[in-house]
């Protein structure tokens, strides 16, 4: 038997509740909560579970339309129709704080959590992506984090058997001490075979399935909802431990019980464990639950109700079975050597009632705990950050034009942010499940859908520096660039999921970034008709020096309606024409060139006009579908010269090119390395160039024939002349050299 402390306002504060929130608890219950109840409120009203500081802003994002079958916040993940009776479930989530403390397990369990979100929908995961941000790569601690995180992602995904096919890795000192680890998963499900996270039908059995429950991860959600500090190391026990083998078993068993229609609802146990799943499923079904914690399989003796309720042990699910099917559910889980234990039943009283050791430990209204129910909602104060005055004052004239453009190009190609991420993705299984038509290294990954002519284009994107320099336009660019990448692969953008990584929302400057970025994201999503299907907000990404760059990562899914339209980024053949779509501009604002070569983070976010971008992408898709395009690669980090260089070596073999581009009053460094948006480099057969240019003209998209492929060198005007094999080598090996040097 456990004696619980008597609840006071001091204890409530210790658990992270404000005085006002504690008063709300008193009002909901009409009495002083028990310690267990207080723990439940504390964790459910944490930022991580309640979205209390973000939900009001998130609701302004476009969350319906297009091919959406399940919208944001309705289920564990969004669901989008792709035709042929199939749908795609996908979502992205952060695991930043656990990864800052314990990179291997933090990243591994981040992958595990997002995979569960997908297969609780009844969808089999077919791809994973990871969007990562770290501090200065020369720093030993950063190297430790990079290696641990990449190893953890590989460990979990490889064993589970999902190909990790796309993602990003950026390095910037703003992420020092607070890396970002965002994991995305994509799954496929037949219409009518999806599962829902609800509890309905009085008397239906409530079962816990999967792993047993231990003391790991207690208050993980609360830990994720405060700034990292010197004390954070002591929070290591808040980090969960992952077991991908068990997750694989859980996947197979879960899909079997869904396929056999044995259940009413199912929810993954992630943050806040049993507390969250019981409350949210009850609230969604407008029902209640009575559960007995004595029946929960536990790993350790003597766990209290509080500990069992708040444990974040991994690889568990809460299942509401249809009455009479318990034995069949147990048989299926037993086949996979997993627990499936009835721990209670659905009630109709709207309460979650929890028993332990023959005593009732908690009786709380389910709705009062849940997001969208009784959880608090705040709109915080905003203030435009002062730094913007300084960064916006940057003028291109203040930096000299470099003398050796070839040298700048090689330096950029070898810089950590532009260099190939091969060192990381070769540690991920990229081809398991035999659907990977395009793996990492191109514009978007392409996964074919077996038994159909279709394929999916998958991309994560966000340049945090752009968002720092202009939160609204920076977020627009994140969406636009993800969509452009998808279009380059031959896909029509369908929908996005987002992972919003920001600092402490109680700082008005951070909240300004958050609100502006969400505004920009929403504007862009409307233009591209890509609704937000859900995602995750991660605040409190701070270290003792300040907040991280505001980093709203976009995960986008596009549909390639015929596998014949899959398009590669690298040149395919010699003697092809090289066509530039879009307009070069006289700016180097926010560019990797400005940051890397001149060591200046300044200017505005690069130029973007959403309407111009929409026209460009529509034209690109049209041209691809007409069979005019051999390769398509978008102009992004590093500018046009880097795009041309990559086009030479990221294909199946190295192919050079000879390029002549008009300056048109644009400074040479801006022409070669500026990052103005809405530009794409295409290659096409020589006899198709005319048709392509005419098509672009008709669509109102600027297009120019800028050269020809072939040879083993890349020549750009009279300014750059480099051997493709050499720049390819520099691009491909520099990250490994940086991270593996002893």
């Amino acid at each position: 038997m456990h004696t619980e402390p008597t609840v006071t306002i001091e204890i409530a504060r210790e658990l992270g509740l404000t005085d006002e929130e504690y008063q709300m608890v008193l009002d909901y219950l009409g009495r002083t909560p028990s310690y267990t109840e207080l723990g439940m409120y504390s964790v459910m009203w944490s930022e991580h579970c309640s979205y209390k500081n973000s939900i009001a802003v998130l609701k302004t994002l476009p969350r319906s339309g297009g091919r959406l079958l399940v919208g944001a916040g309705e289920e564990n993940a969004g669901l989008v129709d792709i035709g042929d009776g199939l749908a795609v479930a996908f979502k992205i989530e952060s695991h930043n704080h656990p990864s800052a403390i314990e990179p291997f397990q933090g990243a591994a369990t981040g992958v595990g959590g997002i995979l569960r979100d997908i297969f609780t929908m009844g969808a089999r995961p077919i791809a994973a992506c990871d969007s990562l941000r770290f501090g200065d790569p020369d720093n030993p601690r950063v190297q430790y984090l990079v290696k641990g995180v990449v190893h953890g992602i590989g460990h979990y995904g490889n064993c589970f058997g999902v190909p990790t096919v796309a993602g990003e890795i950026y390095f910037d000192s703003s992420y020092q001490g607070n890396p970002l680890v965002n994991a995305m998963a994509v799954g496929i499900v037949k219409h009518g075979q999806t599962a829902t996270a609800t509890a309905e039908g009085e008397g239906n059995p409530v079962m816990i399935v999967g792993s047993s429950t231990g003391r790991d991860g207690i208050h993980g959600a609360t830990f994720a909802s405060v700034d990292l500090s010197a004390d954070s190391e002591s929070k290591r026990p808040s980090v969960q431990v992952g077991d991908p083998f068990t997750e694989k078993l859980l996947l197979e068993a879960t899909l079997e019980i869904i396929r056999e229609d044995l259940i009413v609802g199912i929810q993954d146990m992630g943050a806040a464990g049993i507390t969250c799943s019981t409350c949210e499923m009850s609230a969604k079904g407008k029902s209640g639950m009575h559960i007995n914690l004595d029946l929960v399989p536990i790993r350790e003796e003597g766990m209290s109700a509080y500990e069992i309720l708040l444990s974040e042990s991994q690889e568990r699910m809460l299942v509401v079975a249809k009455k009479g099917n318990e034995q069949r559910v147990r048989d299926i889980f037993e086949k996979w050597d997993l627990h499936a234990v009835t721990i209670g039943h659905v009630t109709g009283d709207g309460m979650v009632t929890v028993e332990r050791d023959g005593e009732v430990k908690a009786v709380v209204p389910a709705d009062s705990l849940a997001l969208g129910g009784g959880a608090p909602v705040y709109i915080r104060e905003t203030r435009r950050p002062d730094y913007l005055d300084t960064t916006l004052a940057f003028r291109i004239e203040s930096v000299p034009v470099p003398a050796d453009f070839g040298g700048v190009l090689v330096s950029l190609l070898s810089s950590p942010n532009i260099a190939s991420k091969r060192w990381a993705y070769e540690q991920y299984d990229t081809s398991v499940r035999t659907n990977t038509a395009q793996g990492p290294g191109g514009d978007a990954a392409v996964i074919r859908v077996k038994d159909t002519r279709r394929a999916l284009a998958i991309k994560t994107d966000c340049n945090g520096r752009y968002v720092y320099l202009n939160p609204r336009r920076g977020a627009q660019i994140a969406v636009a660039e993800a969509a452009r990448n998808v279009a380059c692969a031959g896909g029509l953008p369908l929908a996005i999921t987002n992972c919003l990584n920001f600092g402490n929302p109680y700082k008005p400057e951070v909240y300004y970034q958050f609100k502006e970025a969400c505004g920009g994201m929403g504007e862009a999503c409307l233009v591209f008709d890509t609704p937000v299907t859900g995602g995750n907000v991660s605040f409190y990404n701070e270290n003792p020096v300040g907040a991280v760059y505001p980093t709203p990562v976009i995960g986008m899914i596009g549909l390639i309606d015929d596998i014949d339209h899959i398009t590669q980024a690298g040149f395919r053949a010699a003697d092809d024409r090289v066509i530039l779509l879009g307009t070069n501009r006289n700016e180097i604002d926010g560019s990797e060139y400005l940051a890397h070569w001149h060591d200046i983070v300044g200017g505005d976010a690069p130029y973007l006009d959403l309407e111009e971008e929409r026209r460009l992408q529509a034209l690109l898709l049209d041209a691809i579908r007409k069979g005019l395009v051999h390769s398509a690669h978008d102009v992004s980090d590093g500018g046009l010269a880097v795009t041309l260089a990559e086009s030479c070596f990221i294909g199946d073999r190295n192919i050079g090119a000879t390029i002549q581009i008009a300056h048109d009053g644009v400074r040479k460094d801006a022409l070669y390395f500026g990052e103005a948006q809405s530009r794409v480099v295409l290659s096409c057969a020589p006899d198709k160039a005319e048709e392509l240019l005419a098509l672009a003209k008709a669509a109102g998209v600027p297009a120019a024939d800028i050269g020809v492929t072939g040879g083993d060198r890349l020549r750009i005007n009279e300014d750059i002349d480099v051997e493709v094999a050499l720049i390819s080598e520099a691009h491909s090996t520099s990250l490994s050299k940086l991270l593996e040097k002893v």
Partner: protein
Amino acid sequence: MAKAKFGVVVFPGSNCDHDAYHAAKHVLGGQAEFLWHKEGSLQDVDVVILPGGFSYGDYLRCGAISRFSPIMKEVVRHADRGGHVIGICNGFQILTESGLLPGALLRNRSLKFVCRQVHLRVENNTSAFTSRYRQGQVISIPVAHGEGNFYTDQDTLAEIEENGQVAFRYVEADGSLTDAANPNGSLNNIAGIFNKEGNVLGMMPHPERVVEQLLGSDDGLGVFESLLLAISGEEPVLS
């Protein structure tokens, strides 16, 4: 003669089982069955495929637990009768653990999981698994493993080499044998070996992942086509 029947063993942590099944059945147009590891029958299959994955999580040594699965007794019996068995990746590890093949697969010398396209040279095209390749042909095929570093004592190694038991070696694109072409540190760049009798093949690279041009290469087809030819004497018609 009836079409060759492939049986794909499913251990709880197998994750390339669907891929092998897809290759054998949908691409090659053969017959294929999944064989659950807890069962004691091989359902009269001609070829047993031990697929890749992490059969029991591989928290102990890879394949160390799966060799005790009920179905492995049948697989050994099948091999002893001269039946064909192919172990891919984790399946290769299980074959060495269960004694059907010599040697062991150690951790990669980089101590990292490695997934990339590699080049293999066909070292012996007289087997039931490789007859559709030319002797010395270089094929492109992916590896994806953390423990694929083939090791054995010197005597066994010499014996394997002398008997022509080496099926594939890691090489450069031009077929030359270099240390740089070796992704995991395997002795003599060995990527796959036969048993003495030639009816059991273990290989770390994944032929089942390269059977369709859509996914970049169909160089792995030869393994499956060779088996079809050996068992049912038929020239495969690709679907």
